[in-house]
């Protein structure tokens, strides 16, 4: 386009009318009239008026970045662990109904003393407290061991364990008994060993202290492992324990608010085509899931897949004469699941999915076991578990068409165990409520750390990218996170672990939400240099004639002004 509306009328140079005049003289273009000059000035002014009075406000309005205020220093402090050192004061009640008050006081004092001597990890310590309403508290604990887990409110610390000290005739040394479904440890002692207030280190105290130390050894090592990062745990932790802890952490799923459990029945034939899954889940799994309620929520789906064949890559099971069974080699188990053809969704809904597969082999290959140890189940780390169910065959050598609730019992017991492992529940002590409590404390620690480090990352991100917008909801998420983090910390300090976990869950959720805010994520990958590429291609071509026009006009005005001054 050679002519723009703002351009002056092209002055003419007459073509040499060579044919007529035979001369090549050049005529000077007629001078511009003042009127034309003024018109040009007006045209340029009109364009620039639009730019200045409308363009710049729009530019300012639409490209200014809203950055809500974030408490950067506080966030960094959390990430560096300066704000909160998580401590775990575990309150343990000691009940000695048959001891005199001074004796029991003494026993308590000496046991506590011994415990403190044994303990080398200050953040995690056991605090003994004497109670007398033993029968009452013990009964309460026995009655609803799970409901104490849910007791998140309240100002008093959670009672993690009740130790009952009871005399028993005919014992040479003290012995202890942990009740599997309660948070109660019974310690029996020979009546002869009643600690007298004079002895400084009675054997009973030492025994109780060692028992407690043993009960919480793994938890202590785990928490130390988490708090100190991957590097070092406690000095005293045996290499086996360290190994088992890191193995458990490797196997278990990342923490999630909600897990999705998917139970699938696979069989290569047409039967069994139905199973009493609802009753089985209700009967064998629900109590466990209820007990997990303070930690995570669960959703469940089930499916039955018939004619589910192995993938061609899987080595076929081999018949073992001595075992009288079809065997799978241990190293082939990783190829057992036909991921290409079996419809196992990687994730349904929000949370991660845990898959539990019940495989009923074909009658011609039944029974099927793992070769090395005749096991019928195995766990797939961070994914789920498999159980090989070999139901008794019908008369016509076929699988039963229906799997009753009873026949599923062994499978679901295994699944429950696998679920506990996959969720990172420690293997000791033997009591399930204690293991779940341990899990609560471990999870509270991990969530506290992960939310804190997310805060630190967010702070660093917003610091390093000054052009990133910070929406108001991110700021509110951050303040929610910080307040819940400090709530978590104080709950931990006071020994209220359920409340601590509840706060930590909120903190983690909010932290993730603020970090993965949609409008910010897009900007992270948008460096400032790209703005040149955004502005120039269009505004450059538009701007050049406008700016050149403006410069010419300014030059002319300056020249005029100078001429006027010279004349005056």
């Amino acid at each position, binding site marked *: *386009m*050679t*002519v*723009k*509306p*703002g351009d002056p*009328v*092209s*002055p*003419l*140079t*007459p*073509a040499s009318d060579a044919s007529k005049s035979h001369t090549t003289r050049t005529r000077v273009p*007629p001078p511009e*009239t003042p009127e034309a000059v003024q*018109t040009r000035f*007006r*045209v340029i002014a*009109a*364009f620039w*008026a*639009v*730019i200045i009075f*409308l*363009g710049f406000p*729009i*530019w300012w*309005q*639409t*490209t200014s970045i809203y950055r809500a205020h974030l408490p950067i220093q506080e966030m960094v402090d959390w990430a560096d662990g300066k704000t909160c050192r998580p401590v775990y004061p575990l309150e343990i009640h000691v009940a000695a109904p048959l001891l005199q008050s001074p004796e029991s006081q003494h026993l308590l004092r000496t046991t506590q003393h011994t415990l403190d001597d044994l303990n080398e990890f200050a953040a995690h310590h056991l605090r003994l407290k004497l109670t007398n309403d033993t029968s009452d508290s013990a009964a309460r604990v026995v009655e609803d061991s799970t409901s104490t887990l849910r007791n998140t409110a309240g100002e008093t610390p959670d009672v993690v364990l009740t130790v009952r000290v009871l005399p028993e005739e005919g014992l040479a040394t003290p012995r202890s008994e942990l009740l599997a479904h309660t948070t109660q440890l019974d310690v029996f002692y020979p009546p002869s060993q009643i600690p007298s207030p004079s002895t400084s280190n009675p054997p009973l105290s030492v025994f109780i202290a060692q028992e407690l130390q043993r009960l919480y050894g793994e938890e202590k090592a785990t928490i130390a492992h988490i708090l100190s990062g991957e590097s070092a745990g406690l000095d005293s932790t045996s290499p086996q324990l360290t190994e088992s802890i890191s193995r458990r952490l490797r196997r278990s799923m990342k923490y999630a608010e909600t897990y999705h459990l998917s139970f699938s029945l696979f069989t290569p034939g047409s039967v069994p085509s139905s199973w009493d899954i609802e009753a089985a889940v209700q009967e064998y799994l629900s109590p466990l899931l209820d007990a997990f309620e303070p930690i995570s929520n669960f959703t469940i789906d089930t499916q039955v897949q018939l004619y589910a064949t192995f993938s061609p890559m899987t080595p076929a099971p081999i018949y073992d004469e001595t075992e009288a069974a079809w065997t799978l080699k241990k190293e082939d188990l990783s190829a057992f699941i036909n991921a290409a053809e079996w419809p196992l969704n990687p994730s349904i809904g929000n949370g991660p999915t845990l898959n539990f597969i019940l495989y009923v082999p074909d009658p011609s290959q039944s029974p099927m076991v793992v070769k090395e140890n005749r096991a019928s189940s195995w766990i797939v780390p961070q994914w789920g578990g498999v159980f090989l169910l070999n139901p008794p065959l019908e008369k016509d050598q076929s699988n039963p068409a229906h799997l009753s609730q009873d026949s599923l019992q062994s499978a679901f017991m295994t699944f429950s165990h696998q679920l506990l492992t996959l969720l990172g529940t420690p293997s000791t002590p033997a009591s399930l409520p204690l293991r779940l409590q341990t899990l609560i404390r471990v999870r509270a620690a991990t969530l506290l750390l992960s939310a804190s480090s997310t805060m630190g990352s967010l702070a660093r991100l917003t610091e390093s990218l000054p052009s990133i*917008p910070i929406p108001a909801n991110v700021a509110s998420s951050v303040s929610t996170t910080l307040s819940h983090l400090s709530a978590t910390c104080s709950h931990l300090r006071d020994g209220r672990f359920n409340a601590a976990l509840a706060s930590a869950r909120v903190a983690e959720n909010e932290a993730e939400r603020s970090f993965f805010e949609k*409008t910010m994520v*897009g*900007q992270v990958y*948008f460096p400032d240099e790209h703005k040149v590429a*955004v502005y120039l291609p*269009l*505004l450059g071509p*538009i701007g050049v004639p406008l700016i050149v026009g403006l410069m010419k006009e300014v030059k002319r005005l300056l020249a005029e002004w100078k001429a006027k001054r010279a004349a005056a």
Partner: protein
Amino acid sequence: MAVDRRTVGVFGAAFVLRLLLICLFPSLPDLLTGRVEVSTPVNSFKRLQEGLYLYTRNVSPYDGGVFHQAPLLLPLFSLLPGVQSNPIPTAILYFLVDLVNARALVTISESGQSVQSQLHSAVRKHIRWDGVSVAAWFLFNPFTIATCLARSTSVFTTTGILFAVSNAVTGNSVNAMLALGFASYLSLYPALLFVPLVLLCFDQRLQSANKPPNGIIYGLQHAGILLASIAGLLGLSVLITGNFWEFMSATYGFHLLVPDLTPNVGLWWYFFIEMFDSFREFFLGVFWLHLASYVGGLTMRLRRQPLFVVASLLGVFAIFKPYPSISDASLYFATLPLYRHLFPLMRYTFFAISAILYSSLLGPAFYHLWIYAGSGNANFFYAITLVWSLGLSILLADSIFAAIRDEWEQDHPDAQGTEVKQV
């Protein structure tokens, strides 16, 4: 009267041609209605049908997020019989609207404003077409016929604009403002024509009246009339839809914010598909300001020929508005024959016309390759829309050059016919 017979002949032939087309090819209107070159989200007849369906069932026509046209069209079209069962009455309405537009063009042409106005008198004013020829150029333009058959609602905007101009050149400034209000109500962008139109009316007034009115007061008066007419139409719309903000955001909000990036012959859709989200609003502002900034500059530069400013702005709109279609181009092409006397001064007509023909033939082909055959991609169609816009821009720039040259020759009668050199 010979002239009348010619007029009747041209108008009748245009009517019969359209009627023949829909009788011989009954599927043609629906085919054209679906073409992106003809139907945009703001003028599509299909979307109008959707709005009409909702409207006749007492649902807000904007509920589905499909209909974005002015609400006053709804009662008008609800009077017509259903298009599926009986398409002829609707088609006849559109034919008549075309004829009415042509009639307005005849009025504009016969006023002679394009060659001889208050402040300007063209040098070559003997080279010109009469009103019927200008109308014939409009009526037999394939773009006009396609728009008419596709029943695009742009034709009503065209009517508004042409009536505003024809009333302005005959001195009915109030009617001109009312017509412009109607056009602005329908499509928003014609409001930008206000300044040159008022100047046109003002020049007319100077010619006729002995006592020249105050320019500023005159302008304010007409702005008031325009605003009042728009406000009246908006008031009627509220009576129809009931919800003021809903229809404002569905119609004018849609024009301004360009949320629907369906391909069309314009330059916006591709740009905003590619644009980073955070810069979207800024560039919306840039594009709209770019469109609006021509008004001031052109009006200043061509102060002596406000009618030509209107025509050139129509060309600018056809290129740079957010949802252009060939109906906008057809309106621009309709005003060009008024300036037959400028044609000898234009230098790139061959190139411009080639580019326009090339793109109007290849455009549908490339669109087919992209959407249906799958052997092309969006860039094919976008490249063609660039060529289309380039052709229009060259034509526009060339005509403006010719108009300026004409003005210059008027000022320097001794230099007529000399060659120009750009410095």
